């Protein structure tokens, strides 16, 4: 079964003369439990696809299906129980005046959970933070710790599809390794499906099963990671990217 099916997705910003087509006719699907990577340089539209799926980019056309159900432009609350997102910059994705406890507690409350206290404890353990971080504010956390909190927040509603928008590009390499390991563990543990955006081919090569290469809003090639590791990209642009990152 496919967890995510995207067909002829167009996303644009602005109207008439100022219209910018950020994504043009993107088509791909992600099987349940799979990890799919979107690769490209800045401005290629890879993050925009994630924003269109979640509704943060409201002007899109085409079809998006999550777990077999077509996604409407106006998303029902239950949609966010299935799909969650982790943002690129952990320094910008946490409210500066909310403690970790508030961030997770509010998320759980919004999804109608009752045993909030227990769940906050469990979430913090899941992402390897532990209890001593529960009442800290973002400025008392390092970048890696913040990203763990952001991951805990995304996991709170127990989603099945997790959208990862360059989750480690703002972090140091040693912290990146920790976060990537954590994401791999969580996927195995909770049977999650990942759609991961990255500009770093080696990160996608490590994390994903399949990937799509994007350029100027279009998907130029979809391939298996085995092909990537074997340097068997077909499209000249993907080959160029591959050569630049080895």
């Amino acid at each position, binding site marked *: 079964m496919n967890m995510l099916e995207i067909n002829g997705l167009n996303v644009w910003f602005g109207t008439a003369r100022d219209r910018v087509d950020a994504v043009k006719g993107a088509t791909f699907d992600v099987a349940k439990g799979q990890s799919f990577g979107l690769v490209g340089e800045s401005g290629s539209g890879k993050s925009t696809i994630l924003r269109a799926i979640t509704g943060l980019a409201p002007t899109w056309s085409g079809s998006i299906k999550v777990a077999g159900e077509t996604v409407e432009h106006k998303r029902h609350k239950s949609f966010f129980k299935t799909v969650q997102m982790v*943002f690129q910059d952990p320094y910008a*994705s946490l409210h500066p005046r909310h403690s970790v406890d508030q961030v997770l507690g509010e998320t759980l409350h*919004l999804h109608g959970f009752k045993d909030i206290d227990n769940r906050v404890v469990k979430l913090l353990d899941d992402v390897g933070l532990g209890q001593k971080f529960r*009442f800290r504010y973002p400025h008392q956390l390092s970048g890696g710790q913040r990203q763990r909190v952001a991951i805990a927040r995304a996991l709170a509603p127990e989603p099945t599809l997790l959208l990862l928008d360059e989750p480690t590009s703002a972090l140091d390499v040693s912290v990146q390794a920790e976060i990537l390991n954590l994401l791999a563990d969580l996927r195995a543990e909770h049977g999650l499906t990942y759609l991961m955006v990255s500009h770093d081919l080696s990160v996608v090569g490590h994390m994903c099963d399949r990937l799509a290469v994007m350029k100027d809003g279009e998907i130029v090639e979809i391939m298996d990671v085995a092909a990537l590791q074997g340097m068997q990209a077909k499209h000249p642009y993907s080959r160029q990217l591959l050569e630049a990152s080895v």
Partner: protein
Amino acid sequence: MSQTQTLRAWLLTDTPTSRRHAKLSAIYQGWLSFRSNTMAMIGLGILVLLVLVAAAAPILAPHDPFAQDLGNRLAPLWSDSHVFGTDSLGRDILSRLIYGARITLYIVGLVALIAPILGLLVGTVSGYVGGWVDVVLMRITDIFLAFPRLVLALAFVAALGAGIENAVLAISLTAWPPYARIARAETLTIRSSDYISAIQLQGAGALRIITKHIWPLCISSLIVRVTLDMAGIILAAAGLGFLGLGAQPPSPEWGAMISEGRRFILDHWWVATVPGLAIFTVSLAFNLLGDGLRDVLDPKAGE
């Protein structure tokens, strides 16, 4: 000594153990950085003194502020039992100043409650919702901004009748537009940030996002603005009092006292000068406090 040391360490910890602990710790750190600003501490000191004086007015005032003594009118400074002399009806100026502090605080308190809250509401809703709501709300704000402040206040008072409550209302109604502008500008930058996107992805509605996520970030810069504007508000209230449209006689409002004293300003200068100095001191105190608060609360100015 060790008791205070551990309390300090408890407050300065980076690993708070409970919700209350985290909050107290954040407040204490803010206080520490505020305390290092000497001028702001002076401002705060003056204002605390003002509150204490207002609270203890019946004990502190040497005379009844309304008791007239026509035989001893316009007594000079330091005359017996009248430190600041007496006014044209022989009332003790010091006592009137002390009781007047209550009125000043009353005005300041009410305006500080009404204007920023109204501005915050209008500004954040306008900024977050956008579209035609934004257009309508901001044009209304523009209309209010276009009037000269004192003139609009005069019009309100003329329509509603003279009196301290109406003066406060009039000042508040003319003071909110700048706060709405600030709140809107802040909301626009906050709205596009990742943490707002993140809470939107949890299905949070506009009301929750505005009140729980945007307000806490707007409030600090509004507090700073209000404190800095307080001097102007006191002066506006005094101005209305001076024109006879604010507090009515025999109320010991400072502006009204200056107004009464101006008739004798050449021969008996202290009658107008002493309440003038009081207004000056309190206004200055608010400005100093505002500067200090900006350093603590406004992260942008700090960096």
